[in-house]
């Protein structure tokens, strides 16, 4: 599996896709154009996602302003150990993701790229496992809004409604991220050299970073509220 010189030289050619291949520019320039376009596209998509989660956070803000005391009570019921562990897992995965993105653009860093991508996926999966354990505990403690909800104060159900919804939406986003990274690893495994200078790596890692960021906002909202002081 050598990433030999002949493979590397053809990088722009192999990664150029329509319509960028018809710009009638030198291949190198067309390719850097394509990379800029792809990165720009994912940034626009992330802007869109920010509005999506922005609306979700607005919902939280409005509900919490209205029911501050109940929200504090409810937030104390979440499991801060699992929450903090997950934050650590996800932040570490972000480090590996960023490294993978940088490494994919360097010559001779194939093993590093692959290794970092694998670490990213494993940490992401670990996050999901921890989340699953936490969900199981929540269900056992009757923290699912409904008839036999554990807490008395009325708006605590609102908090847990938001808890289940936001963590589920985040988990769906993370699963998509895991899928993207697994696809990259699989492609590289099938066709060595695929990752080298491929804009897809940076695009996937930007998305991964965004999902990280969302968790960093969710963590204090769900776990730290009501625990201060």
């Amino acid at each position, binding site marked *: 599996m050598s990433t030999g010189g002949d493979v590397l030289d053809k990088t722009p050619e192999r990664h150029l896709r329509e*319509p*960028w291949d018809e710009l009638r520019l030198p291949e190198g320039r067309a390719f850097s154009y394509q990379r800029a376009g792809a990165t*720009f596209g994912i940034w626009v998509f992330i802007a*869109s996602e920010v509005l999506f989660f922005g*609306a979700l956070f607005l919902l939280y803000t409005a*509900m919490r302003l209205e029911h501050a005391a109940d929200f504090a009570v409810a937030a104390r019921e979440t499991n801060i150990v699992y929450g903090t562990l997950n934050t650590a897992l996800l932040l570490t995965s972000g480090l590996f993701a960023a490294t993978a993105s940088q490494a994919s653009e360097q010559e001779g860093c194939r093993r590093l790229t692959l290794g970092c991508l694998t670490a990213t996926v494993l940490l992401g999966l670990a996050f999901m496992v921890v989340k699953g354990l936490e969900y199981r505990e929540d269900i056992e403690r009757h923290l699912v809004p409904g008839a036999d909800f554990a807490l008395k104060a*009325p708006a605590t159900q609102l908090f847990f409604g938001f808890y289940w919804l936001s963590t589920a939406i985040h988990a769906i986003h993370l699963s998509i991220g895991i899928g993207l990274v697994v696809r990259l690893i699989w492609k590289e495994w099938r066709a060595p050299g695929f990752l080298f200078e491929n804009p897809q790596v940076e695009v996937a890692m930007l998305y991964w970073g965004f999902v990280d960021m969302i968790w960093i906002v969710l963590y204090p909202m769900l776990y730290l509220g009501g625990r201060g002081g």
Partner: protein
Amino acid sequence: MSGASSDASTLANPRELDLGLPVSYLGDGYSVASWLFTTDHKRIAILYALSITFFFFIGGAAATLVRLELFTPQGDVVGADTYNKLFSLHGIVMVWFFLIPSIPTTMGNFLLPLMIGARDLAFPKLNLISWYLNMAGGLLTLAAVLAGGIDTGWTFYVPYSTVFSNTFVTLAVLGVFVSGFSTIATGVNFIATVHFLRAPGMTWFRLPLFVWSMYTTSLIFVLATPVLALTLVLVIAERTFNLPIFDPARGGDPILFQHLFWFYSHPAVYIMILPAMGVISEVITCYARRRIFGYSFMVYALVAIAVIGFFTWGHHMFTSGMSPFAALVFSFLSFIVAVPSAIKVFNWTATLYRGQIGFESPMLYALGFLGLFTMGGLTGLFLASVPIDVHVQDTYFVVAHFHYIMVGASVSAYFAGLHFWWPKVTGRMYPEGWARFAALLMFFGFNLTFFPQFIAGYLGMPRRYYTYPPEFQVWNVLSSSGAAVLAAAYLMPLGYLTWSLFYGARALNDPWNASGLEWRTTSPPPRQNFFGNPQVLAPPYDYHPEATPPGDESRIAEEGALT
């Protein structure tokens, strides 16, 4: 499909250059798979055109039944529940599966790369995926209809939609949610395309206004749609998983839903009208043979509408009991957003001055647009005034107002564009006499349908009423008769345009002597869009009214020097 046996090697006009071109995009494969798996923006535009036409007639059929029911004050054609499902179906299908995708996904898809001299959109595969998402959303919504319908109205107001409705709300909401991905993908694609794939010389202030309108529309696509998506997720979660979110019985706030919903749905109105403004700018300049009046003001007006449009949502909620100060702020912003719209109307009018005006059917639609948009915009001022809005909110006055904007203006513009670019898209000419007749009939039918609704609304007839007090009958009879005329007018283009696909005369490359880059290639264009490398040397709308009538000399495409 669509009888596309045209081959561009025989040019209709021997005077035009035969550049030894490859076959047109229509001739680039005839199998079903060559259409369903295409990444050609032009073919995807055709796919969209077929799907939105399908949804337009579904929504139209529902509207026909609604108008039929309202012919008499009693309920006699359908039952109350069926009526509620019909107007909900009409609203949902027309808003999300016709109006929002209409101009952007058909003309935008087809023309955006052509107008800026690109080979395709920036992400062709994403473009195809977004058509599939749109279809999936549409079919989910139709599945909800077949399963038994949905009766919440297109606004899905809680707690009716989450707790009280016994209909298939989740399925329909899921359909709209899925179509939202399609919208966002299209927006991302257009924005990246305009940023990165403009031909050499095509600077930002040389972009045709249609491209600017697509760009600003895409901004709204990308920034407003996710808020709707989240709101719909919340409705689904509350209905399906019984999570407490908006349910007032469990501490939720139904007004919050309205804020989130209108934060999307008011900009969505501009999604429907901005592309129409783009089309009209292209059509009016071509048939007036004049440069657009105040190009830079037109651009700033588009951007201003898109931006200010994000901050006016509250005027949909004056009666739901918001703070009077908030109401006044929203009222003020709603007046302000009308200013750029007014500028556009004045500039279009001024563009006609000292022109060389021809009255081909696209121009008839465009002039109709001017009148109807002015009416719709000015009645918007009534609704922006809080005391009047309190009176006419949720009455037929509002119904008439937004139909003037969304049907009168947007659909007129859609037909103007459809006729204007039909020769480019299909390579065939349509029968001009029929087209003019349809345009006039549509204008007449539209006004007969919706003008009486202003009066009925001002007199106090609420919307979404299955039965109504008998004193409103005269206005409803007028309106329903107008709807019959309008239905006939909408069916006519379906007939003669289809006819033209098979029997229409072959189109010239530039039948209208228009100036845009899209006319500097064959009709229909080849898969690669252009021969040679388009280069832009001048600002858009290079028309010369002083030239000898009846038209300018034919423009002949020369490689390397276009527009």
